[in-house]
């Protein structure tokens, strides 16, 4: 079961990652060139997935769009980990102290805000762009990782090897880095995969309402938004980007499940 998840998930996510990487070198058709005369063509030999309302090749758009989705989600996860993990480690190291309390209350505060709404507000304040989408998604990743790291770290702090390190005269920072962090990486990898897939969904949602990466940068969510009024006579325009999102997210989720089972079968299932 877990191996199968790993293989299917790895393959699906791998395909899209490769497509994104390949798009740097080669795409079937330049997505910055419009070809209004050939707009909204169904799939054909020349355009495997058809063309969109500007005559662009949808396969090429999906490949370049994968780049946007992956970049946004990856950096957002990076922000979440980069800030959340140290916060979680610090909270665990000062368990029960004011720092712990402050960090956890801060987490609760962020969680109390409806995420989509805040994302919309952020983009309303600073304008719609991929960077602001990243920030909006990233902010909500911080408490996720902070909480996960803290709970993982807390159970580690109760272990005797931490006591041994304390007896060896090591301080909280050193222990957090040397002992705690390496032992929560499994948790972080698994959660990171899941947040990555959620990030892709969130990016699609934001760019669907026009708040993600701006044209001419292709993005899956905007492709869906653009196709929305045409779905009744050009279903291919909505079908393929939707499938791209679905399969990537599915792939990442399966990968996350597989990794979880592989890295630690006893790990609590968080979702």
């Amino acid at each position, binding site marked *: 079961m877990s191996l199968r998840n790993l293989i299917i998930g790895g393959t699906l996510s791998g395909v899209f990652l490769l497509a994104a990487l390949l798009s740097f070198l080669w795409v079937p058709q330049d997505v910055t060139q419009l070809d209004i005369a050939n707009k909204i063509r169904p799939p054909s030999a020349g355009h495997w997935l058809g063309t969109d309302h500007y005559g662009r090749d949808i396969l090429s758009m999906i490949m370049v769009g994968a780049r946007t989705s992956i970049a946004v989600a990856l950096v957002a996860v990076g922000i979440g980990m980069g800030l959340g993990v140290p916060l979680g480690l610090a909270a665990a190291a000062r368990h029960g102290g004011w720092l712990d309390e402050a960090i956890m209350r801060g987490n609760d505060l962020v969680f*109390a805000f409806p995420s*989509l*709404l805040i994302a*919309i507000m952020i983009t309303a304040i600073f304008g719609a762009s991929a960077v602001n989408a990243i920030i909006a998604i990233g902010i909500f990743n911080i408490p996720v990782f902070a909480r996960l790291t803290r709970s993982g770290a807390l159970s580690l702090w109760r272990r005797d090897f931490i006591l041994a390190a304390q007896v060896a005269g090591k301080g909280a920072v050193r222990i957090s880095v040397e002992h705690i962090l390496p032992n929560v990486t499994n948790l972080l990898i698994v959660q990171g995969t899941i947040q990555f897939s959620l990030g892709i969904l969130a990016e699609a949602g934001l760019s669907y309402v026009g708040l993600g990466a701006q044209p001419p940068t292709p993005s899956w969510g905007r492709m*869906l938004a653009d196709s929305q009024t045409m779905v009744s006579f050009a279903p291919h325009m909505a079908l393929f980007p939707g499938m791209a999102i679905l399969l990537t997210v599915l792939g990442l989720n399966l990968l996350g499940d597989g990794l979880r089972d592989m890295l630690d079968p006893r790990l609590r*299932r968080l979702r």
Partner: protein
Amino acid sequence: MLQFFLKRLMALVLTLVVASGVIFLCLEIVPGDPALYMLGLNAQEDTLAALRAELGLDMGPLARYWAWVSGMVVGDFGISYTYRTPVAEMVAERLKVSLPLAVYALTLSTAIAFPAGIWAASRRGRGADIAVMGVTQLGVAIPNFWFAMLMVLVFAIQLRWFNAGGFAGWEAGVGPALKSLTLPAIALALPQASILARVMRSALLESLNEDYVRTARAKGLSRGQALWRHALRNALIPVLTIIGLQFAFLMAGAIIIENVFYLPGLGRLVFQAISARDLIVVESVVMLLVFAVVVVNFLVDIAYALVDPRLRGQV
């Protein structure tokens, strides 16, 4: 118990105060002048100034914050800049759609997730389990607005079983009103149900591994009896947490779905208000949603205590 309440209440108020400050600060730096938006391209400077004065936008930020917060405490959310009607009335009107939609979606989600999760857990590793897990994987991965688009295409435009959108209004009767909320509720419920079913399953599997389930089996309970009488209630705690989170999400997160189905709900109000720089509406609705989240979390905490006697003791 009373002390617990007071403590939680204090934390609740504190969260709200901090949140109100954060919201106000955020919106202070939003660029865009609501007066200019309302009066358009040919507006003259003196006209704009007159309108700003009427809207109270010429006051200092602190004065405006105080006016906003002190009004909110007594239920006065101020007057919308663009609609020129009390925000409280507008919100109340929108809640008539958003709240039932959230409840409807949550009911659907729970009604699907519980049996599916229990079924999968009790048949762990077998066909039913694999099927439920596969379907829920899809449900989690599908973008709900895309799913909504497909549903409109099939059920409203092709089959014409449902209206493509819009809200019939409660005055049209409960039946038509609920009918117009059905497709949106399904679109919202599908991913939620998938997540909930997965949580239900794993929580149940975890509690099925507990020693007390083995004890129950040793008493002579069958596998099913042990699951229903002992594992299920223990598995409810993580499930409750998720339900609480989902309710909060459904209140606010329906923005996109409300747009797809053109429902006059809270999410769309905020979205319009942000585009129109109707800051007072944005502030108030966001605040209201934060309030809802905090209250729901509070209720979930109380529910924990009802489920778990260990917490009751501390409480």
